[in-house]
């Protein structure tokens, strides 16, 4: 096995092995467990660094293995995969740190971190999947690995959330499976290829192709929470904050959105999809989701629930970017894949901090929290501003690219949708910011878990991750032209894969 | 010729009548008696079909031993003989769809008999052709112990397995003692030696005429049952432990010879010279162990002292 074959496998193994070890470790072995966790996360980042260097230099990384005749497991670490992989791996490190602090005294931590590692493994597999079969395998693995995390607390609400999640995702998985097999029937292969695999084939019924597209998008759309397949996401917010971070930023919804990208670009091919007339309905579905999520977020009193609906809306920016025909729109979508992750994880980290430190769960309990927890609140504000698309934040970059793309594709309504969404975002985030900073301190906090403690407002492990991601939110905009920025990378993907650098 | 056919037709009708009575007669004990009658009639049928080996086995095993087991089981059911729901015995047959399916099956089977193709393979000729190298001169024994000896090996295992199953089920140890008179022991005293003699005759005869290990074992088992009924058994009946050893030894002997013959090129591949001797050896072993096995179907329970025979020698 050559080095170039081994590297993608090592990326997967770097979270799989720690996961197995953590399962076996007894509950009380905290130090050892933390060590394995961090070792895995750091190793993974290092391996991804090697991959990044290689891919930029034009190296090919891939691995193939026959599961059965005509069933091939294919990994390939192309630029698109690396975009997702690096996002997930970096956020995994931060989330692990956060979770160590967050769950310091909670039970069942072995189980939690074990499944957490499995989730990340599944995400790596999804990102590096070289064909639909491999994608599906890890997609279902992700479902299995997230379920124990969602029901982790074991409360009736958690159970309900978990059940709803399973019902949606398993059903979506079934649709995806049928779509994949059907497509495989018609084309003989489902390998992700630049420009798609369908344009070259002829003699295939266009109606069948459209049906398959519907099945595939419905399958991945469940995880991407496209309306009306979004019902599980608000239910799942009962999970602990690190899990929410995982669901909303690191793995699950991202896997769905990433699937949309792969299917549209590398299975159907953007031009072929356009010629089939599939892109417009996709864009419309995304637009409806964007508006619906924002509108529903307005009326949510629970902070995490509001954030959940915000996610529904924001993830569909990515889908919208895919649905907009043209490279600029795609760049907007891809870069939002990263930006939304960074911003949303900031918000969930902060929401977790409020809940953990002061017992705040609802928006109307947040009065004056900015003065009690200034660092957290600052990070929260940056994240929220980013969501609104305020200048100097990552959100602004994605939105401007999306709008450019929409203009180029002559879809002015998309611009209106984006603007309306920004307004709605303001409408549900600005009141929170107002409460945080301008309302007076309440007499007592709902449930103050960590009393005021010198300089630190809460455990440092809870504080560091949101701070880092908040800084990243700003940096992603400020240094958007730097060689290492997500935007540069997204443009590079366009360059490598489509030979048309925007 | 017509006399023979008329006799056979009468036999067929009687056979069907006794079978129907077995299922339809209201009293259970009567049903079992009818079944024994059926078995005896069947013995005649086998003779008509020139299958004396089967006739012997049917009389000894099918009608004799099975009948004994059935009657014995009936005595265990301390229930009014006539089932309260007797009306349902026949009513059951009126369950229309099932009845229809059965009638269709019968019709199809009978129709199919009228248009059978001629067999493409002439197996009797093949048996006759190889009989000389089988080690025995009676074709049925040759098939049973040599050509298809592997079936017989597994069949012996089935018998041993059934015994194991019965032990696993466990049976109530106590049984109402039949108030038998002194004549039965007298009968047993005179009959049992004769039966043993007959058994050995059957075993020895099996090589060249009807008879063989199974028939011999059945006769021996019947002798054991008779001994038990005459209540002479307490002095000679071995413990379950010994029963198991003897029964197991027979199968082990068979398997052992079969495996040893592997050295000569195949499972149960008798060397032409010693085939007759080896078959006689196997049959002798089987006669004893099968007899104990068959008798144990009936006897084991009474030899136990615990609540369930199956758990009997747990305290050994």
């Amino acid at each position: 096995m050559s080095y170039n074959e081994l590297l993608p496998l090592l990326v997967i193994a770097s979270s799989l092995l720690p996961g197995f070890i953590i399962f076996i470790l007894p509950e009380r072995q905290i130090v050892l467990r933390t060590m394995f966790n961090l070792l895995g996360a750091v190793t993974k980042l290092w391996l991804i660094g090697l991959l990044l260097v290689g891919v930029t230099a034009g190296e090919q990384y891939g691995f193939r293995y026959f599961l059965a005749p005509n069933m091939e497991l294919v990994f390939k670490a192309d630029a698109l995969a690396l975009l997702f992989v690096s996002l997930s791996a970096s956020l995994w490190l931060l989330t692990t740190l956060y979770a160590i602090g967050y769950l310091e005294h909670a039970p069942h931590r072995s189980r939690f971190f074990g499944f957490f590692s499995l989730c990340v493994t599944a995400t790596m597999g999804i990102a590096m999947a070289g064909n639909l079969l491999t994608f599906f395998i890890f997609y279902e693995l992700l479902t299995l690995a997230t379920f124990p995390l969602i029901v982790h607390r074991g409360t009736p609400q958690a159970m309900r959330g978990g059940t709803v999640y399973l019902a949606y995702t398993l059903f979506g998985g079934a649709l995806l499976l049928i779509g994949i097999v059907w497509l495989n029937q018609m084309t003989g292969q489902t390998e992700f290829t630049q420009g798609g695999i369908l344009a070259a084939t002829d003699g295939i019924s266009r109606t069948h192709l459209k049906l398959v597209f519907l099945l595939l998008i419905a399958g991945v759309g469940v995880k991407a929470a496209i309306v009306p397949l979004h019902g599980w996401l608000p239910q799942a917010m009962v999970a602990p904050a690190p899990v929410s971070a995982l669901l909303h930023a690191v793995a699950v919804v991202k896997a769905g959105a990433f699937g949309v990208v792969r299917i549209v670009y590398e299975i159907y091919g953007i031009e072929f999809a356009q010629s089939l007339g599939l892109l417009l309905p996709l864009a419309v579905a995304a637009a409806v989701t964007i508006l619906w999520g924002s509108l529903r977020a307005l009326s949510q009193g629970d902070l995490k629930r509001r954030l959940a609906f915000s996610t529904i809306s924001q993830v569909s920016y990515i889908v919208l970017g895919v649905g907009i025909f043209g490279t600029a729109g795609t760049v907007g979508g891809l870069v939002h894949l990263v930006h939304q992750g960074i911003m949303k994880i900031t918000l969930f980290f902060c929401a977790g901090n409020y809940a953990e430190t002061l017992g705040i769960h609802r928006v109307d309990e947040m009065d004056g929290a900015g003065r009690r927890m200034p660092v957290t609140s600052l990070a929260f504000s940056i994240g929220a501003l980013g969501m609104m698309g305020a200048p100097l934040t990552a959100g602004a970059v994605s939105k401007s690219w999306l709008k450019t793309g929409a203009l180029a594709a002559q879809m002015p309504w998309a611009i209106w949708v984006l603007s309306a969404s920004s307004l709605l975002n303001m409408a549900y985030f600005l009141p929170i910011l107002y409460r945080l900073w301008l309302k007076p301190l309440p007499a007592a906090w709902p449930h103050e878990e960590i009393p005021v403690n010198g300089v630190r407002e809460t455990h440092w492990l809870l504080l560091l991750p949101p701070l880092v991601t908040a800084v990243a939110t700003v940096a992603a905009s400020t240094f958007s032209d730097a060689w290492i920025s997500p935007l540069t990378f997204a443009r590079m993907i366009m360059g490598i894969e489509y030979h048309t650098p925007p | 010729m017509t006399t023979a056919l008329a006799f056979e037709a009468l036999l067929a009708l009687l056979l069907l009548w006794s079978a129907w009575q077995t299922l339809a007669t209201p009293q259970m004990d009567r049903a079992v008696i009818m079944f024994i009658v059926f078995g005896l009639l069947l013995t005649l049928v086998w003779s008509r079909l020139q299958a004396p080996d089967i006739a012997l086995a049917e009389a000894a095993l099918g009608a004799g031993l099975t009948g004994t087991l059935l009657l014995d089981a009936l005595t265990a059911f301390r229930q009014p003989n006539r089932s309260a729901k007797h009306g349902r015995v026949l009513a059951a047959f009126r369950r229309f769809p099932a009845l229809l399916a059965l009638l269709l099956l019968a019709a199809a089977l009978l129709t199919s008999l009228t248009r059978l193709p001629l067999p493409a393979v002439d197996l009797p000729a093949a048996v006759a052709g190889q009989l000389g190298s089988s080690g025995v001169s009676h074709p049925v024994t040759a098939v049973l112990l040599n050509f298809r000896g592997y079936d017989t090996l597994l069949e012996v295992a089935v018998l041993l397995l059934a015994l194991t199953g019965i032990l696993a089920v466990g049976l109530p140890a106590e049984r109402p003692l039949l108030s038998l008179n002194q004549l039965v022991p007298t009968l047993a005293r005179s009959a049992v030696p004769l039966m043993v003699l007959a058994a050995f005759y059957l075993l020895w005869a099996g090589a060249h005429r009807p008879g063989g290990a199974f028939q011999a074992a059945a006769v021996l088992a019947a002798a054991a049952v008779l001994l038990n009924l005459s209540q002479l058994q307490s002095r000679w009946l071995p413990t379950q432990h010994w029963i198991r050893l003897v029964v197991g030894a027979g199968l082990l002997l068979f398997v052992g010879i079969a495996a040893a013959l592997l050295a000569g090129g195949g499972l149960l591949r008798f060397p032409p010279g010693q085939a007759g001797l080896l078959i006689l050896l196997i049959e002798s072993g089987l006669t004893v162990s099968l007899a104990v096995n068959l008798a144990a179907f009936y006897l084991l329970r009474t030899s136990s002292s615990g609540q369930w025979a199956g758990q009997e020698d747990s305290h050994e």
Partner: protein
Amino acid sequence: MIEHLSTPLVWLILLPLVWATLAFCLGPGRGALLGLSGLGLQLLCAILLAVEVAPKQTVTHLVGGWQEPLGILLVADGLSVTMLLLTQAVSLPVALYAYSYLKQGQHWFWPLTGFLLAGINGLYLSGDLFNLYVTLELIGLAAVGLVVTGGAAGQVTAAMRYLLASLVGSGGFLLGVALLYGCFGTVSIRLLTSLIGSQAPLAVWLAAAVMVAGLLLKTALFPFHFWLPPAHGGAPAPISALLSALVVKASFYVLLRLWLGPFAGFVSPLAWLPALLGSLAILWGGCQAIRAERLKMMVAYSTVAQLGYLVLIFPLFGTGSHAMQIGLLQATAHGLAKAGMFLAAGTLVKASGSELIDGIATMAGRLPVTLFAFGLSGVSLMGLPPSGGFLAKYMLIDAALAVGHIWIAVIVVTGGLLASIYVFRVLRLAFLGPGDERQVALQPVSAVMEWTAFMLAVSAIVLGLAAMPLFRLLEGVAG
């Protein structure tokens, strides 16, 4: 001479016979060490046989040195070797489990299991219809004996019902043998296959009908499944595992052999019939498993459903797909997963002292290895990746769509979703929080019981990643 003596094929039959008989002589509850070492040797024999068969496609052995039609031919090809490997690979860990589970009892597990395995191995190697009948009876009686091993009244009733069904099933089979012998004068499968053409006389049709019906009854395919749930759900856990993982597969194997061998010429237009029954089995079994209150009953109904998948391949024969491989993969995956699940369920029942799903599952969190075993088995049963069950179901959908049998694909997917409902019904309870304060003391269970179940479940998963050898082994088998 040594070369003849070491024929693994023959020893696969003789070994269990010998140790079963010895265990029988030793008495109740004894013979475990004999059995375990015998099973180890059997596994070795099965592997040796696989190595021998792989390049040659078939290995035969003339019993008694007589050619067909006079003698009985033992045949090992890819199909039988796969089933033999599965049988030995499942029975060894199950026996280890049983050794721990049944330790104190006065039972006849060892001899009964030995005879069962002799019957199963004999069946997979047999090339002769009447010999198959004898092995079927051996299997049936041994299985019935095993069902009553627990000794409870419910098990006796279940065993009685099982016995009657089994006897009627083998009766149907024997009737078919009688008709075929009457028509062709031989019971050799190989000769019959060449003699029966596509124009079968009525008697041959009838023979096929009664044999298939009898075998379906023994395989417990819907609507002949009535005897299975009480028997499999009521028996002690290791025995349920043997019955569900291995015994029902044996009669299915015979069905497959006949369908593709002697009857191939004329039954293929009727292939939709078993497939239809299989579909109903998947739906009905799934629904009943969801409704079950007792854990092992749920697992037993899951077997009813999973058996349905096996017959779904029948319409796919001769369509150029890997129908045979799919069926065997499903049989293997189900065998491993179901054995693992029954063993895990048995551990949970023993540990919690309750048979009800609600009573058990809250305990499950305290036995993580067993819970994982249950979950991983469930993954394969649901057909989720990466598992043997997934591979089989994916290929089944693929093959079905290739010939336009969309309904098969729909049934397979629906069956997977039903399975996920009943599997997660158990799994989710394991996560119930401390709100449910039923701190009942856990009965101690041995590590062997936990880890054997785990190993079986893991192998069901690993099968999904390492199935290529299986496909290669089956390449030469007609299908």
